[in-house]
């Protein structure tokens, strides 16, 4: 690691601080989505009035916060395999056997399945939602209307010939996701208190789950400050990074491998990022808003180095 405060190339431009795999957090995620059996070949009534938390246990208003209800039909996969692929972010478009959606009007929390359409084209739901040995059905609530991102909660529905259930309630999502992360064992990133704060992630190879980095997916960067927290305490609340931050700055990215942190702006008041201060924990995260898995691709503790970059070993032991 070079001296981030003083390093410069031959043109005088600041030498970027190179982010490394060793600085990235590690996480493991698994989903356990409940299943409800229903009648087959009927126009179910689907309600989401009980969806008061998303799968990250964040509170949500079923009426106001749900933008889209979708019915996904998947083929060749068991429910367990679907959960695994969702957790890993590896669900393929070819796994989807059918996709119907309904854009909510934020005035109701129930709708008949027949109100869902295939990109605006009505379908005969009594033919499309039927008992099948090799197909699985999943109801999905989302913020936004994209299929790949914004998932709030999910429910498997299984049409069977024996069931007489014609109304389903998508439950609150809290408890579906088992997410464990290790933020404190990784090397932290030393950054000076004062600019320049140019960081370069072009050398990363793996995301927090150990899968190859999708560089084109990295579309924004977050800097977070957590006053009075330790890294361990932050790790314990890792699903709430954006909710519990004392202050957070964001920077939209357009495909580069590096960024100047001084261009980040406060997510609330839009003021530019002016530097690291003592009294809490700082994080730096590379985010992918269009990825299936909303977890940061890269997440690390920033170690303000007081104007001179130093290498900080795991658990805060300076070398």
């Amino acid at each position, binding site marked *: 690691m070079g001296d981030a405060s003083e390093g410069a190339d031959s043109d005088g431009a600041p030498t970027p601080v190179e982010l490394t795999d060793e600085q990235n957090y590690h996480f493991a995620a698994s989903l356990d989505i409940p299943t409800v059996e229903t009648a087959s070949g009927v126009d179910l009534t689907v309600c989401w009035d009980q969806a008061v938390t998303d799968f990250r246990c964040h509170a949500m208003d079923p009426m106001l916060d749900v933008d889209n209800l979708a019915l996904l039909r998947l083929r060749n996969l068991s429910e367990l395999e679907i959960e695994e692929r969702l957790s890993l972010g590896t669900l*393929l478009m*070819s796994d989807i056997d059918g996709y119907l959606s309904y854009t909510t009007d934020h005035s109701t929390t129930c709708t008949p399945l027949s109100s869902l359409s295939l990109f*605006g*084209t009505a379908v005969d739901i009594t033919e499309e939602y039927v008992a099948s040995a090799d197909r699985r059905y999943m109801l999905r609530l989302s913020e936004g209307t994209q299929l790949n991102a914004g998932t709030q909660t999910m429910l498997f529905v299984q049409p069977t010939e024996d069931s007489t259930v014609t109304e389903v309630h998508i439950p609150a999502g809290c408890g579906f996701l088992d997410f464990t992360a290790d933020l404190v064992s990784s090397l932290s990133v030393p950054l000076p208190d004062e600019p320049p704060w140019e960081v370069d992630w072009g050398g990363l190879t793996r995301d927090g789950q150990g899968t190859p980095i999708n560089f084109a997916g990295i579309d924004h960067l977050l800097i977070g400050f957590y006053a009075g927290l330790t890294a361990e305490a932050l790790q314990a609340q890792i699903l709430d990074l954006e909710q519990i931050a004392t202050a957070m700055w964001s920077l939209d990215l357009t495909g580069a491998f590096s960024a100047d942190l001084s261009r980040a702006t406060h997510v609330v008041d839009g003021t530019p990022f002016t530097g690291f201060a003592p009294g809490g924990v700082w994080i730096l995260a590379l985010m992918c808003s269009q990825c299936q898995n909303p977890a940061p691709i890269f997440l690390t503790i920033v170690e303000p180095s007081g104007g001179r970059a130093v290498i900080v070993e795991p658990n805060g032991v300076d070398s």
Partner: protein
Amino acid sequence: MSILGRSARGFACPVAIVVGLSACADDAPDARPLDVRAWVDPAIPMLVHVAWTTEAPTLGSVAFGAAGALDRSSSVESEPTTEHEHTLFGLRANTDYAFQVVVEGGSSSDVGTIRTGPLPTGLPQMSVSGTGGHEGYIVLPVIGATTAVLILDAEGQIVWMHRDDRELDIYRARLSVDGRTLLYNAASVSGDPSDASEIVRIALDGSGQTSIPIPLLAHDFVEHPDGTLGAIVVEYRDFDGQMLRGDKIVEVAPDGTQTTVWTAWDCFDPSVDVGDNQDQGWTFANALDYDPVEQAYYIGMRNFSSITKVLRATGDCPWVFGLTARTIGFAAGADRFLHQHQFELQGNRMLVFDNEGSIEGESRVLEYEIDFAASEARQVWSYASTPSVYTFVLGEPTRLANGDVFVNWSAAGQLDRVSPSGDLLWRVNMPIGYVFGFHTLAETLQPAI
């Protein structure tokens, strides 16, 4: 223009001589490439532009390649000039390339290197298995979380891209006949068609774009050898007091004149040729090909589950193959297609992308040998994906020169190359949320200069 960061500067001959290279020592001074500059295109980071000057008018080209090789070349200029600028195509993002200016009858520059830029954000991360989807390039739209046109190389890597933000979908993209531009349709076939639809022409070198407004564009369009465009356009007509959704073919001449050359109403009668879903659309044409030798269009109609030949000059339909209004039927034992999309007729062989004909509920490709005299089609080949996939919209098969078949599963986000015996040779998969439009295959991306 900078020699720093993502740009680079090659060494002109005078510099090369200084550093001891002898390539230019015997060249006429006025044929030397001077002031060689290279830079990454700011909008399409997989494009590299190389410019140089010569004291006298000369013809030149640029040799280039990855990993230090100079195994590819831009086209040699057709007219001598002193100001030269070439664009290098087919490059992958974030990759180092060597390049060298070559002057016909003169000298070469020293070899320079340049790194292409990173992929813009928002493009899907495709998974690729096997090698060699196509010997050339694959031109196709991506629809979903991002709407864009991509060009993939033989290994499925993105070598060109253009994002479209006009809130319409793109269903077909193709290189223009002169190879200089890329054409695509910005339209909507989900629900009602769009009044704001248009065919967009964008310079392959990223230098600009124009568009031709054509309201109610449907899925597909073609370009004739003379540059005339032919497009499927939705056409509403009154039928029994209701507005019925049919289709027509609209041509756009090179001078911009738009002419209707065929309508479904010329060949079919909605009271006789009913189709299977008039509420949503009568013919619902969704695929278009053109044969310049026959001067004929071939148009697929989803709700007829039929494909018809259309004579450009008269609008007549000499044959219809499929279900509704058919004049060519299926031989005994042949699988029938249902709600098909793209197809390919070569001689008397027709590949058809069958979206919904299989009783297993999977999409597939069927190939028929058509006996036009007997008005009968015999099935000669079929292919289904393993694992099986269902493509609810779009889908296209293309027979390659060596007999392999390139299959675009479109809405299933999958591309396959399969051998005639059905062995999978190469596959691309998209993550959930992204699908492919129709494809075209291109042998080269280096247009004549």
